[in-house]
């Protein structure tokens, strides 16, 4: 039953993406071009990576609202590694490594402190934001070399390397979820943490590892951020936590955990970015983006509840 409704949901989301594409293509001549399609995909890189980590966390019944600040800190570190002329391989590892450390910090506070993830990560959001302020000191980090940009935009048979890296990350997550015990354990914890512990699962280890993995993905998103925008401002990542949560929920991974849909998250991110790009091209100011995302999140959640009630009421 879960699988059925999951597939149905993915199809609905895919249909929504197609419908949005047609609608915007009708309304704006600039939307339906190959160049714009590439832009939409390229704008999705960071969000796809961060939403992947968020999907794992939410499947486990956790959440991390500090992801934007983690991306900010790691982007700054990556930028400075780039300026310090370190070898490119090292530069690309700095972000994920630092991100994993910060994720592990959040995980340690949540797991060992036994406090709700939302409140703990809200506090850490403040702390990480301070790190960004301290490093940047009110300035912008800008004028970065284009080395990373060339890596991300390098094309293998027409497919940009950035998209390949994102696909690899999702592929790796899929293998871990389906081919190792990590997947069942993650879902068991999300379904009922106490029962998972009684069953003898290594709950603490799985939870810490998931927080660290999400942090590493935020770090990778930081690398992409530097590659694509080549500057960092003080407000980096302010809204990306909302976008990630919205994409995950759109994709059908529930807030309570216990179920996961990677395909759903991929499509959720795609739909968000199509909407944002399309609305911008038909002349809606970019300030409305958060409003649209927030309304979409609440609308989908409400519609889900209403539909579920209608279904159980009819049965």
């Amino acid at each position, binding site marked *: 039953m879960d699988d059925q409704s999951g597939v149905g949901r993915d199809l609905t989301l895919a249909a929504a993406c197609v419908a949005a594409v047609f609608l915007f293509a009708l309304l704006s001549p600039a939307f339906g071009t190959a160049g714009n399609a590439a832009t939409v995909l390229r704008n999705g890189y960071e969000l796809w990576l961060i939403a992947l980590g968020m999907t794992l966390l939410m499947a486990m019944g956790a959440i991390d609202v500090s992801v934007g600040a983690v991306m900010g800190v790691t982007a700054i570190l990556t930028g400075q590694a780039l300026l310090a002329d370190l070898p490119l391989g090292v530069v690309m590892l700095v972000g994920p490594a630092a991100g994993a450390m910060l994720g592990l910090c959040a995980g340690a506070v949540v797991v060992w402190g*036994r406090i709700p993830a939302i409140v703990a990560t*809200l506090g850490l959001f*403040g702390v990480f934001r*301070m790190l960004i302020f301290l490093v940047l000191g009110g300035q912008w980090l800008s004028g970065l070399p284009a080395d990373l940009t060339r890596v991300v935009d390098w094309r293998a048979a027409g497919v940009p390397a950035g998209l390949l890296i994102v696909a690899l990350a999702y592929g790796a997550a899929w293998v871990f979820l389906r081919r190792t015990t990590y997947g069942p354990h993650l879902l068991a914890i999300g379904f009922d943490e106490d029962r998972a512990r009684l069953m003898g699962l290594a709950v603490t280890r799985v939870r810490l590892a998931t927080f660290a993995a999400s942090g590493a993905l935020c770090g990778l998103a930081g690398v992409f951020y530097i590659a694509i925008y080549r500057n960092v401002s003080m407000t980096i990542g302010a809204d990306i936590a909302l976008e990630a949560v919205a994409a995950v929920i759109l994709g059908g991974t529930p807030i309570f955990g216990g179920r996961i849909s990677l395909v759903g998250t991929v499509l959720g991110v795609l739909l968000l970015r199509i909407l944002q790009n399309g609305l911008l091209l038909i002349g809606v100011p970019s300030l409305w983006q958060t409003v649209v*995302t*927030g309304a979409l999140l609440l609308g989908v*959640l409400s519609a889900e*509840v209403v539909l579920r009630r209608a279904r159980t009421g009819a049965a």
Partner: protein
Amino acid sequence: MNHALRRNLVPVMLCVLWVALLGTLAATHAWILSPRTLTSVLQFATILSLAAMGMGLVVIAGGAGIDLSVGGTISLSAVLGMMGLGAGLPGYWLPMVCLGCGVMLGLFNGLLVTRLGILPLIVTLGTFYLFSGLALALTGGGAIAGVPDWAVGWGRARWGALPMPFITVVLPAFVLLSGLMALTSWGRWIVAMGDNERAARLAGLPVDRVRLMLYALSGALAGLGGFISLAWLGSARPNIGVNVELEALTAVLLGGVAITGGRGGLVGVVSAALLVVMLRTALLQIGINTVWQTGAIGALLVVALLVNRFSNSRG
């Protein structure tokens, strides 16, 4: 003795922090402890105390209750109030419009939580972005000037060293709500449903109605905060509520409210809100870079959570 200390660890910590802060200031920067500082602390604490009281009651009532949208509500009700004036409403309607907007926004949260059964953290995370996004989008990011003179006169007036808004709004609200908690059955219901919701429902308490009212109350207090920001600053700033949710949540937890509900009171919450503002003001006056403030408050939130958890655990 040891047991009593452990049960009251958070209030003890709050007292220690107050003594430590005042003691340090008296020893090193005695000039800060002046009536002028008192005025400025109370002025800054006015909006935060209102938001923290609303958030405090929502958290005490349990059910994973939290209101992350308070900051957005403050900004949006201030902006909507001024837009109402711009649309031709007479000036004396301003407080009512702000209050009314706050109530509506709070009711919106409450309905999503109680009628649709969506987790409060996800509802208010969505409305946090929705409300603050709307405040920014409606104003285009700029401030709206033109607050009536009588309001500004009231907002900046003082009675001795005490700012008028603090005396005429915060103190009455505090007395009223404390009375509600201590003397009426509503107060006992709030604590009871936070302590054990199932038992409260079985005993026939109107849990959902009380919870709906508390979200509306939190919105109303935030709406009043929005009006006070207008009267104080003389214009509606769409970003006035930024970070208020973080500070209010810190004040609530530092004030001894258990994040799981059922424990805590408003005396602690308001005293912690004053501490947070005092700390911020002291850092500002000593000349420590403002970037430390968000971090210090975030760290304080995490520490308060950990201490809270430690004092709750029986083992």
